[in-house]
């Protein structure tokens, strides 16, 4: 019941409900940034996530990761079933930004598209330098973002991504499947 309705609610409304309903679960997010309009991410983290999501699933004639709600999906899961990944996201996003600012004097989302791509390819290949990325954390965190972005874009829209069932439309796949009503509205 709750899962299905959340998608339809505005984020503010959802936050109010979630706070009433589940008490302490949002403390982490609140400590981090009191002004955030997200459940877990700070506004700055969410901007970075949007840029990462577009790199993983770039917009073309179909919406990309950002527009389809990848950040919203991950944000939502991080205060739900993915609570165990909270620390990794906090650490990983911070590490990406500090890397970019040291090396390029800019935030990731301000870098050129090809620079962003090259940066992520380094992460994917496990070639990042510095203590932030020790023990293969570069590959691990990249894989986490990649996997979660794919879930957001190609999974059910009830979890906060795949806005308007965009990926199902792209694949020409009727969705959702409902008995007697096997079509989505275009």
């Amino acid at each position, binding site marked *: 019941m709750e899962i299905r309705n959340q998608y339809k609610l505005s984020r503010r409304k959802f936050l109010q409900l979630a706070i009433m309903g589940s008490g302490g679960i949002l403390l982490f997010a609140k400590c981090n940034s009191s002004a955030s309009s997200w459940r877990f991410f700070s506004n700055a983290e969410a901007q970075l996530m949007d840029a990462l999501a577009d790199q993983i699933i*770039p917009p073309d004639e179909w919406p990309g990761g950002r527009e389809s709600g990848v950040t919203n999906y991950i944000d939502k*899961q991080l205060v739900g*079933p993915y609570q165990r990944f909270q620390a990794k996201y906090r650490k990983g996003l911070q590490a990406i930004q500090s890397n970019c600012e040291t090396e390029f004097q800019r935030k990731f989302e301000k870098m050129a598209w090809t620079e962003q791509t090259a940066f992520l390819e380094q992460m994917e290949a496990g070639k990042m330098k510095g203590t932030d990325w020790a023990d293969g954390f570069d590959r691990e965190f990249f894989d986490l973002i990649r996997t979660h972005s794919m*879930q957001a874009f190609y*999974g*059910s829209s*009830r979890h906060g991504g795949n806005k308007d069932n965009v990926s199902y439309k*792209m694949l*020409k796949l009727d969705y959702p*499947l409902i008995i007697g009503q096997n079509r989505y509205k275009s």
Partner: protein
Amino acid sequence: MANQKVNALIVGAGAGGGVVAKELSTAGMSVVLFEQGDWISYDDHTNDELHSERNPVLGNACGPDDNRYRRVNVFPDGSQHIVLPSEGDYNNISACVGSGTVTYGALAWRYMREDFKMKSTYGHVAGSTLDDWPISYDDLEPFYEKAEWEIGVSGDDTLNPFAAPRNKPRPMPPFSHNKEAEILKEAALRLGYHPFSMPMLRNSIPYDGRPACYRMRTCIGYACPVSAKAGTHNTVIPVALKSGNCELRTNCIVSEIMVDNNGKITGVSYFDRNNRKKTQLADIVILSASAIETARLILNSKSKFFPNGIGNENDWVGRNLQGHAYPHAYGLFDEEIYDDFGPGSSVGICDFNHHNSGIIGGGYLANSFIRMPYSFSGVRPPGEKMWGKQHKEFQRNNFKKMAEIHGPYQEIPNFDQRVEVDPSVKDYWGIPVPRLSGKAHEDDIKGCSFLANKAELWLKEAGAVKTWKGFGIANSVSAGQHQAGTCRMGNDPKTSVTDKFGRIHSVPNLFVADGSLHVTNGGFNPALTIMALGYWVGGHIASEWNKGNRFKS
């Protein structure tokens, strides 16, 4: 108020336990059937890929849940990992009434004659515990038939010359193929193979008060919205309940088998739905909790009479854990071969199950079930980008042009792939969790390579313009949803856990009725064999009981 003692209690309402409950209760015995999960309805999760039992990244729709359950995996390098049910390494089977029979792909195979005689057929294999079963195909044949008629199977062996002989046809005709399967069928015929529509525990026509399948794309991993897929939850368990002799107790976690001061089994202790510790006494205890959980329960039941767990005098409980490796090949076609006629997986061949040169056993090959979008995003040819523009284009261009052929390779069991209980990690109820270690026998690679090559050849013949393959062998424990072998049946108590009727050798009133009994696991999905064993074990207990045998010695 204390529970009343019953004639029999069964732990686990899945493929084996559901059948045993029906056999005993309809024979007049009083029965309590324990299930750790609850009844599942389709509406609880619809066709949400991220909660499906095959890909439960956000949590298993049909349980178990991530909050209360844990397992420990030991990798071959010695590292240990705590795994959650939503993670693949957990080797999960649904935790609900019907268990895996709610969410399975519903393939309804009988094993072949050779599958019960692996050592006689292939000889001793070094480093393995490959052996014959103490029962033959012909012993089990009538019980396969019972499963096919009481639970409901569609299919026809006419086109499969490798099928073992049967006394009676299946009750429903086979399913028609979709476009992809038709293309593959024609290719298999050109190659001289013997393709046929595979048997399914799914209604091809209305049967037993349930409707025919309406060919959705989401089937494996999901509950069926119209109950066309047959499991124990919508067939034998309702019959058991209707008998008036069976009480189903859901949301109950059985923690230990109880032993009295004389070393006799008296029942079990368990946690009820409110997590209160309780006991249930019974004349007979039957374990049907699946290969990992049945072994765990036995190993967690230690006493002065059974210091290593009940019936574990010779250290065979938990050994020979096996699942199936899944060698496979993918093929991309120029044209769309996808017609959205679900659930897929219908054309199969048994040409490579046995008597392949240089290979121990083998397995059937078939087209796979329809792959959903998120799962598809992880399937790419070697060297292909896994993200970015190219990845998205590949997804868009090929979603309806890809076929997969795969098959379950019959693993060579070994003593060191096993279930133990972890010395320190406990679940929500404080019960030591299963600890899985070991890996598949090294010769499995030969069989997997052989089958993957055959799969690829088949796709090429069908017109695939690009193909690639994989051996489907885990780098760690192989168990999965086809887990088996941890309480193997046998005639020699020194090299097996139960006798041929599933009774623990050293204990007169403790039985096993699930995949744990399998000596070997066939090159097939094991569900119908587990059901047949449920009829075999349950039928034996009921007939003995009604002759006056109370299993006291």
